[in-house]
């Protein structure tokens, strides 16, 4: 009996020993990479300030409201331009908001992203703006763009917010086959979003076709990550809270709202959500297209989507697609038209404006959606812009060489009335 007990104990010991014996494999990788530069959370969250106007050097998205033009300085903040006289726009101030790309304005509250946070700024007095609320970590993966061609080192979010990258040779230990750094480069590289002494009206401003923020009364919809749409309740302006978070299986890029419908441009198609319950958008339908970047706008009957190549979205066709959304649950392609390299687009009545890359600005009469291509009203090959806002006969365009404004009251002879020069650093 004793022998049996001893034998059992030995076998148990051996079994436990074998089970505990486990190989371990890991990698030590030495490579040149974009290494994060951190800013402490305290410094980051106290960094909003208003300054005197500065030069525009890298404009991003634009937003128009109550005679003021808000121009994003890529990753740095927002230029405030008094555009009450479009022929003589005046830079009024610069709001320093680190990591800013997008914006939306409701009443006198400016909502802007700042890397991982959403900030609400009271701009009742444009000379003394006040940060009244901050929704932290709503964009959890937002980082700036690093040096192209280099991998990204891993980020340690405990060290603070990533505000820059430095190319360095680093050595990292990792579990084997694990990829290196992560990033949501898209957040700071997506192209454009458009929408005091000032007297702000109650509603929202006007955004361009590449908006990633979209207001609907007190709700702000935002693409928080490429696959995550968040709804933020901004009711009081100082108690923002996320009411809904929708994960989709596509890479979202742009938002456009018309009435109680939210149109989402993704790299592989268009999604339509119902806003009948604005706190929690409900999926209605989708329309699939080839993989490409695709801002979308609509008049409620037709949706206009531009698909372009030569960017991170992939794809190999440059098209304007007209989608019939009369039956909102069954959108279908009515017709597609070849384009050169279409970016942003806009509608004003029967006019369809398209920024067609280096081919310039094209203006169509869209009365007959089946024959848009033959109803080109005007073509301005010298106007190279990536997004636009047509408002009350004034066309605001933003491109690599500045912000242009045109009077298009005579569509056959649109006239440049101002140009804000970009001074590249």
């Amino acid at each position, binding site marked *: 009996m004793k022998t049996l007990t001893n034998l059992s104990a030995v076998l148990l010991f051996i079994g436990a020993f074998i089970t505990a*014996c486990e*190989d371990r494999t890991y990698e030590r990788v030495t490579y040149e990479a974009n290494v994060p530069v951190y800013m402490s959370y305290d410094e980051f969250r106290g960094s909003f300030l208003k300054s005197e106007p500065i030069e525009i050097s890298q404009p991003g998205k634009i937003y128009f409201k109550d005679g003021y033009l808000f121009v994003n300085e890529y990753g740095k903040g927002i230029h405030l331009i008094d555009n009450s006289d479009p022929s003589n726009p005046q830079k009024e101030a610069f709001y320093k908001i680190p990591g800013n790309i997008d914006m939306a304005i409701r009443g006198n509250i400016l909502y802007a992203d700042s890397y991982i946070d959403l900030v609400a700024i009271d701009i009742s007095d444009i000379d003394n703006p006040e940060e009244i609320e901050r929704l932290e970590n709503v964009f959890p993966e937002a980082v700036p763009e690093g040096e192209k061609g280099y991998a990204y080192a891993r980020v340690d979010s405990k060290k603070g917010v990533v505000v820059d990258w430095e190319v360095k040779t680093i050595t990292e230990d990792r579990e084997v086959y694990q990829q290196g750094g992560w990033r949501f480069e898209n957040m700071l590289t997506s192209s454009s979003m458009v929408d005091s002494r000032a007297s702000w009206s109650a509603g929202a401003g006007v955004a361009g076709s590449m908006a990633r923020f979209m207001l609907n009364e007190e709700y702000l919809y935002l693409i928080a990550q490429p696959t995550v749409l968040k709804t933020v309740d901004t009711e009081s302006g100082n108690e923002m809270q996320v009411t809904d978070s929708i994960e989709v299986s596509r890479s979202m890029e742009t938002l456009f709202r018309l009435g109680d419908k939210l149109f989402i441009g993704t790299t592989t198609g268009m999604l339509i959500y119902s806003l009948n319950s604005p706190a929690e958008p409900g999926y209605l339908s989708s329309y699939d297209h080839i993989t490409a970047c695709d801002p979308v706008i609509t008049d409620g009957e037709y949706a206009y989507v531009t698909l372009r190549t030569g960017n991170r979205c992939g794809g190999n066709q440059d098209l304007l697609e007209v989608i019939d959304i009369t039956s909102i649950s069954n959108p279908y392609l009515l017709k597609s038209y070849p384009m050169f390299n279409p970016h942003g687009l806009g509608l004003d009545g029967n006019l369809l404006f398209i920024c067609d890359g280096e081919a310039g600005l094209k203006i169509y009469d869209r009365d007959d959606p089946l024959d848009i291509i033959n109803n080109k009203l005007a073509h301005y090959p010298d106007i190279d812009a990536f997004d636009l806002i047509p408002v009350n006969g004034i066309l605001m365009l933003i491109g690599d060489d500045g912000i242009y404004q045109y009077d298009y009251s005579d569509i056959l002879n649109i006239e440049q009335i101002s140009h804000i020069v970009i001074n590249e650093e």
Partner: protein
Amino acid sequence: MKNDLIFRMYLTAAGLMIFLSATPQQNPGTTLQENQFNKPRYAYFIHPTLSNLAGKSANDEPNSLSIHLLSAYKFMNGLSVGAGSGIEHLGKPMLPAYGYLRYDLRTAGTTPYVWIKAGYGFSLESEDTDDPWYISYRESKGGMLFNAGIGIALFSRKNLGVNMGVGYRYHKVSTTYHETSWGGEEETIRQVFTEFNRFELQIGVVFR
């Protein structure tokens, strides 16, 4: 298939050991205890072993074969000191070289013992790569090894005995991949380390 081969080798070795241990050469008229090979001895001995190294594998090799040959000198107090080498496969073919320390709990006859090995395993893997389009070149390196265990030695002849033992085996190996980008400007050095933690089941023969 590989495990089957190991199993067959163990069977053969076990059969040989049973044969060796079951046929003692006793002098007529003496008891086993009085036999000369049960007397305390100090001697030089050669000790080939065959081991199975078992564990949860990092490379689909839960059982690895290890063949060692060591030589050592045993002192009267039961302590033996020596060195050894062998051939084995731990993720890659390896040539171990190590120092050996053993202590016999009894100084004569059948005895339990404990042992320690410490040294370095050299890689016998080719420097060539299977993926020449991506990996510029590969350096296969060995690493430190450590082994400790307990066993029992049975001597049924004057100069010949068999042993069985169990132990723990640690062995670290690495492979360094030098990966160059398509433009040839950037180089990524990727070292893959594997630390083997294995349970060793050992059988062997002692010639002295």
